[in-house]
């Protein structure tokens, strides 16, 4: 399969000097479900804005469906569907009118629009509310409507910027199932950003982990977890600052230990035979008079992948609406 999105050495520096995207390179294959996983402020939205022709890149090369992003923007806009992070539906229009208007913008013939709008209303489960003003929709309904507007022209590539952030679990699961269906049945390429590990794990065939504007790891969720190659033992120490180095040096000598990193608990130990190591670790630390507050054992998750590469935990934060930051000035 060929690359439908190709990004090389992309850099974005905002006019205030913020380097939001710092030399990233990645590609997305046609028909793929690709994810960008990263905490708030990592540079996900900035990347999406560049890929969807809303923001001009500072440097690098980007092609979408074979079109260069700088010279081919009009061609790109015909084949992409975009759902931005902020839900954008017109509250004064009904659900049906919102989708129909988007169909007009996409230059779809009048006769076709009607049928397509009905299909979409059904897909996102909004038939009964279709003729009510979107102003009165719940936030989950608005997100679903927003998604429907992005799908009106059966886009080849769908860009979704945190499509489930802030949603209740039911709405989230519903959106996940439309997206999987869309990707499987229509073959739509999907580029999704998220702060939720379980979302990336569940949906994405391949993902890139982004932090402070840099891609720190990429691959399929399984590959990334396998890369850790070991189970993890998270150890919390009562006096982390003082005892951390001592503890690390003694654990390092134990057989089977692959890697030890600093973490928020205090120390993460990656080891092949983690379950049998726990007893040894507890005993060894006890003999050194290092007090434990917690020991947890787990098989590798994307959380470990993120922690391994950044030393931090990913934390999905509630969104703070900041309109001024939503529309980057282009240069």
């Amino acid at each position, binding site marked *: 399969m060929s690359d439908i999105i190709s990004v090389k050495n992309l850099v974005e520096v905002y006019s205030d000097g913020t380097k939001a995207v710092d030399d990233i390179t990645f590609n997305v294959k046609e028909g793929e479900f690709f994810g960008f996983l990263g905490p708030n402020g990592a540079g996900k939205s900035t990347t999406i804005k560049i890929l*969807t*022709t*809303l923001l001009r890149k500072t440097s690098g090369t980007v092609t979408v469906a074979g079109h260069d992003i700088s010279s081919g923007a*009009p061609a790109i*806009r*015909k084949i*992409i569907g*975009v759902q*931005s992070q*902020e839900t*954008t539906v*017109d509250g*004064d*229009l009904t659900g049906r*009118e919102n989708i129909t*208007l*988007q169909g*007009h*913008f*996409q*230059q779809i013939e009048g006769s076709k629009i009607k049928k397509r709008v009905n299909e979409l209303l059904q897909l996102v489960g909004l038939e009964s509310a279709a003729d009510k*003003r979107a102003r009165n929709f719940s936030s989950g309904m608005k997100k679903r409507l927003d998604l429907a*507007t992005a799908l009106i022209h059966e886009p080849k590539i769908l860009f979704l910027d945190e499509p489930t952030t802030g949603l209740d679990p039911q709405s989230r699961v519903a959106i996940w199932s439309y997206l999987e269906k869309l990707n499987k049945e229509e073959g739509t390429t999907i580029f999704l950003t998220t702060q939720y590990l379980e979302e990336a794990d569940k949906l994405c065939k391949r993902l890139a982990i982004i932090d402070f504007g840099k891609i720190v790891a990429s691959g399929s969720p399984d590959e990334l977890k396998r890369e850790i190659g070991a189970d993890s033992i998270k150890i919390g120490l009562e006096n982390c600052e003082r005892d951390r180095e001592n503890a690390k040096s003694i654990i390092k000598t134990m057989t089977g230990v692959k890697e030890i990193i600093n973490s928020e608990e205090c120390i993460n130990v990656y080891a092949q035979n983690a379950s049998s190591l726990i007893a040894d670790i507890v005993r060894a630390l006890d003999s050194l008079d290092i007090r434990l507050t917690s020991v947890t054992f787990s098989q590798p998750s994307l959380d470990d992948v993120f922690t391994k590469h950044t030393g931090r935990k990913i934390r999905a934060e509630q969104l703070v609406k900041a*309109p*001024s930051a*939503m*529309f980057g*000035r*282009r240069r």
Partner: protein
Amino acid sequence: MTLLSDTGYIFVRYLKKLIRNPILLFFSLFQPIIFLVLFTQLLSKFSSLIVLPGGSYLEFATAGILLQNAFGSALQSGNSIVADIDSGYLQKMLVTPVKRPAILLGRLTSDAFRVVVQSAIILGLAYALGAFVTTGVVGILLIFFTIAFFGLAWSGISLALGMRTRSSETVFAIGGFLTFPLLFLSTALFPISFMPSWVQDISMFNPISYAVNAIRVLMTTGYDWGTILPAWGVIGLVAVITLGATLYQFRKVVS
């Protein structure tokens, strides 16, 4: 062709937004109507002090109130674009192939349409109170044309400001700051012979005076092209400047 249809879709969108917020529409008409009723009653003795074109103060002032309303509406135009930027709706349009100029044209045509509808309401009320348009139907159409043209020219200021500052408060503040001096230092509400000479001087250069005078002659005297054509010229000049600024800001936003 798509430019035309895209403009149409965006025009209809704004129209629906307007109609579905009748309270907003009512309040923007509220002030001109109060002016029409109260002012013309309070100042009805004016015509016994000086000779007014058309005779009554009501007929004199209707032109000024029409312009005041157009001015107020035009200054709200910028808020709509700020709202679309803040909500992300502008960006939503910009990721589609929609023709860029249509976004601006749709807004401007809906502004023009709105001000004509409001003007028709004011003229209807003035008629009920006893003010006639002497030039008849053609004259009324010319009045509507002049007001719509005037509205577009002044919408440009608020649109440019809205896109530049991205703040509806700023647009409101500057709009309010402009309204009163421009209106009161013009021939909108008071005859020129009634003003101290320094106000007369300012009023001569005030673009609002030109537009008011053109509408006033159409209402009260007849087709006085010597007043109407210069007014269109002045409005055109204002339009070139303000819409030029709008276009400049718009290109910065969408390019």
